[in-house]
């Protein structure tokens, strides 16, 4: 079973979803929680089996799909994908457990389980086409969730979400076909295996074009400025569960794909585009923070702040050194936990008041003390307070980029601090002061089900903020091998200088120690 654990992880939720059609609709929620919990424990077991000292791929499985065209079912994980997979299974479980939706719950549960399959599939895939299949397939459940359970503008929002991402990924698909063609020219065989692509060294101008093709697909997904316009609509209209999954996991597909595809495949292009992308990332951090400040809807505040922090992840990724990339991968987990939790919290208040406007609230801290506490912790984590999970990731990302450019990092760092303003002001508007509205006087504090979903998130936020090593170590082990690969492949002088050479650095360090 161990050698097939990834396939089990990928297809178990889909199988369960199929069987779910038979389950009676009153029991659907319990069924969903059970399946998601089994899946989560399977993923924990995967962590248990994972060897943190090995940096390469583990639990690889391979089966031919279209052998004549080099497409294989090829899956495997390293430290980078492991924790995002656990995050996916975890949030599916939490999401289903905290579900308050009453309309057509069974359909929703089945959709979520299908979505879980596609999420695990994306992060486990090592064949570009398999990756693409899951990547595209993940759009459909999300389209349905937003379109069927969303707000008044749901159809517009869901189609916008779908078409944006779909267009981007088709350009990426052409890029993938080009990669496979280059591989064919170099070796005489078709292959879509990412690991085999890693061995190709492409001329710089090809790298630039292919990098751009992949970038379109990934940047829309992240979403990077100026491709971010679909996201506020999607978040604004999506039901709570949709926003949670979208923010916590689906957006990570884009940043994960940068680390998995763009960096190791096109190191020279990554260096070439490093500063343009950093500028975009900083604009993203600053601009969306400003937009967030202007929002009146608390969900939009959380949505824009989530985009803003995605900018930090991009910045860390394009630091192109171990600190930056490990930090950004860690921040992906952290951002997932924190923004997922914030969307859940917004959902809690929305269920009670059916409004998300901040002006409707005020003084909630006295009415709902437990809610205010949890919200406060998560908000502090979101602004990157030390000893919370976000801090570790943001610090490492910025540290990584500091090695490339002091000025950029300074701007980004300041922006993050200034970004805290909108969060604090939102918090102030909602929780402090007097209770101004009568409707708010008798609001019930968070109940047991909600606590069951929220408390684990709080625990993780603080635990990994204080002691990130169990997660950070496997991540940086795998990141080291990627950075080394990039350095070995780099052809331009600049790339060789920008991307650190870990093998020789280690040798130099040990030399110094012996002296």
């Amino acid at each position: 079973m161990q050698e097939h654990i990834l396939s089990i992880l990928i297809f178990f939720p889909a199988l369960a979803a199929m069987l779910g059609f038979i389950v009676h609709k009153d029991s659907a929620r319990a069924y969903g929680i059970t399946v998601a919990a089994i899946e989560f424990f399977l993923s924990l077991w995967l962590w248990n089996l994972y060897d943190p000292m090995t940096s390469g791929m583990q639990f690889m499985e391979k089966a031919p799909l279209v052998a004549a065209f080099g497409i294989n079912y090829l899956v495997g994980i390293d430290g980078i994908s492991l924790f995002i997979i656990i995050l996916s299974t975890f949030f599916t479980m939490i999401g289903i457990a905290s579900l308050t939706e009453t309309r057509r719950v069974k359909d929703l549960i089945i959709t979520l389980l299908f979505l879980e399959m596609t999420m695990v599939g994306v992060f486990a895939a090592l064949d570009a086409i398999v990756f693409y299949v899951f990547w595209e397939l993940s759009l459909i459940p999300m389209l349905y969730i937003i379109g069927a359970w969303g707000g008044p503008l749901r159809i517009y929002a869901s189609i916008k979400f779908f078409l944006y991402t779909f267009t981007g990924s088709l350009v990426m698909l052409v890029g993938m076909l080009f990669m496979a063609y280059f591989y064919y020219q170099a070796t005489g065989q078709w292959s879509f295996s990412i690991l085999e692509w890693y061995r190709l060294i492409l001329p710089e101008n090809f790298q630039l074009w292919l990098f751009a093709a992949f970038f379109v697909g990934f940047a829309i997904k992240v979403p990077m400025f100026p491709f971010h316009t679909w996201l506020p609509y999607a978040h604004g209209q999506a039901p709570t569960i949709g926003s949670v999954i979208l923010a916590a996991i689906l957006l990570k597909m884009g940043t994960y794909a940068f680390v998995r595809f763009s960096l190791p495949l096109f190191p020279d292009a990554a260096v070439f585009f490093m500063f343009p992308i950093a500028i975009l990332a900083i604009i993203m951090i600053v601009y969306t923070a400003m937009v967030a400040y202007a929002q009146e809807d608390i969900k939009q505040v959380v949505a824009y702040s989530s985009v803003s922090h995605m900018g930090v992840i991009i910045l860390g990724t394009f630091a192109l050194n171990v600190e930056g990339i490990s930090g950004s991968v860690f921040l992906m987990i952290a951002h997932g936990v924190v923004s997922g939790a914030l969307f859940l919290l917004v959902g809690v208040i929305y269920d009670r008041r059916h409004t998300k406007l901040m002006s409707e609230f005020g003084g909630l801290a006295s009415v709902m003390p437990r809610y205010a506490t949890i919200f406060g912790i998560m908000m502090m984590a979101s602004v990157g307070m030390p000893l919370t999970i976000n801090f570790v990731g943001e610090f490492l990302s910025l540290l990584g980029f500091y090695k490339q450019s002091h000025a950029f990092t300074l701007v980004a760092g300041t922006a993050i601090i200034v970004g805290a303003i909108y969060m604090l002001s939102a918090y102030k508007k909602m929780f402090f002061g007097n209770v101004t509205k009568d409707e708010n006087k008798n609001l019930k504090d968070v109940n047991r089900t909600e606590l069951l979903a929220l408390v684990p998130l709080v625990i993780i936020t603080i635990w990994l903020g204080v002691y990130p090593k169990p997660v950070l170590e496997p991540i940086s082990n795998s990141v080291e091998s990627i950075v080394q690969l990039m350095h070995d492949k780099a052809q331009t002088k600049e790339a060789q200088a920008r991307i650190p050479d870990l093998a020789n650095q280690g040798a130099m360090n040990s030399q110094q120690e012996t002296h």
Partner: protein
Amino acid sequence: MLEPIHVSLASLNITTLAPMLIAIVGALVILGIDLVKEGLHKSFYVMVSLLFLLLDLGSVIDFGNIFLKNGPILGMFDMMLIDGLAILGQIIIVVGSMLFIPLALTSKRFHEYNYPEYFSLFLFMIAGFQFMVATDNLILIFVGLETASLALYALIALHNRSKSFEAAVKYFTMGALAAGFFAFGSMIFYAITGSIEINQIASVLAADHYANIGYVLVAVSFLLAAFGFKLSMVPFHTWTPDVYEGSSAALAGYMSIVPKIAGFIVAMRLFEFLVHSGVVWLQVVLYIAVVITMTASNIWAMVQTDVKRMLAYSSISHAGFVMAAILIGTTQSNTALFLYWALFSFTNLGAFTMLWVSRQKNLLPGQSSDHPYEKFAGLVKTMPMAAIMMALFMLSLAGIPPFGLFWGKIYIIASAVTGGYTVLALIMALNSAIAAYYYLKLIVFMFMKEPVTGYEKYYFTNASLSLKTIIGIAAIGTIFAVFAVNPLLKVITLFVYNSGY
């Protein structure tokens, strides 16, 4: 005094006619039975047609084995040419027909299926298409094309509604025009090369290094227009949506698959050598036609209010997509064409059958066409399985992985990449994104809107066990296509490569 001509029977190789003769005999048998006994149930005729088609398929596959051993088979004074393209084409034609003919077994009675002539015309039509693909003789192509088309016009008109007559006459007029163009084009080729066989035309033209390039261009323009009509390429496509709307959904689905593959094979035979001979003008024109066909029809499809018309425009766009394979003209792209069409036929079969089972005899007040989008609104609430099936076919048409058409799509785009048509590859990819919009529109109606009252009694009214089986087959073919791609790719590559394309 003319010399008596001596022809040995063996050199005629009459067996090359076997597949078509089986279909023709089948048609005659049906007519004969009608003379002896009238009023037989349609299921009888469907099964008899199916049996003859099975024999037909068997003989085609037999030729396939001979071809793989001995190479192309010639017969009837070299008129017949059974090469890999002919065999693949005939397999798609016959299998497509076998899947579509059971659609006559509706639970409601329809006028046309009471006539045995319907089924015999159907078999004549198949024989016509088979002739068309199994030759490189322009006259035989013409005869095959006209046999098939005339039968098809009659089949459309038999649906017996005023729109069907309109469709048949429209199609007939356009078809006559196309036939004229085809005849002119062939004539000019004959005039400058003295031959009507595509092979020989190619070698004669190559031998004199395209000295008469002016005439060649005129001939090619005529033929391009003829195929433009038959394959419904923009700007010769205007008949398509009306004809699809007028014919029954079953026949419309059939028209989007079988006549087109026959056309593609002839176009492949004809344009392949021209594209490769360096007639740049043709390349440019074909390039423009392909891009416009894909893009314009996609845009028209977006504004349709009727699902059947939308599918009509979408099939134009798919045809443009596949014409790109002919333009690219490598073994890989020709293989991709067959792969794409094989996968497309399953998905499109499913989509049109879904329309066919909810065919209503009388329109509701305020309803302007047979299948407006509103008809499918909220289908997931009234008939969840039907909605999921329909969504599946739409997703496959949109090229969402891992469903059927995705694999055809990436293989064609990959062949564009390897053939050096980078920009074309990008245009094809972006067109898929545009197309996604109108396929999604139906999904949005089915899954995200509330049902419109009045329509619910029509869903699946027309369904019988055989129709449901067909939908099931189409769905399985669409979902599990990924496992079929590898064997298909191997077989198709073998056939295409050994035919020298």
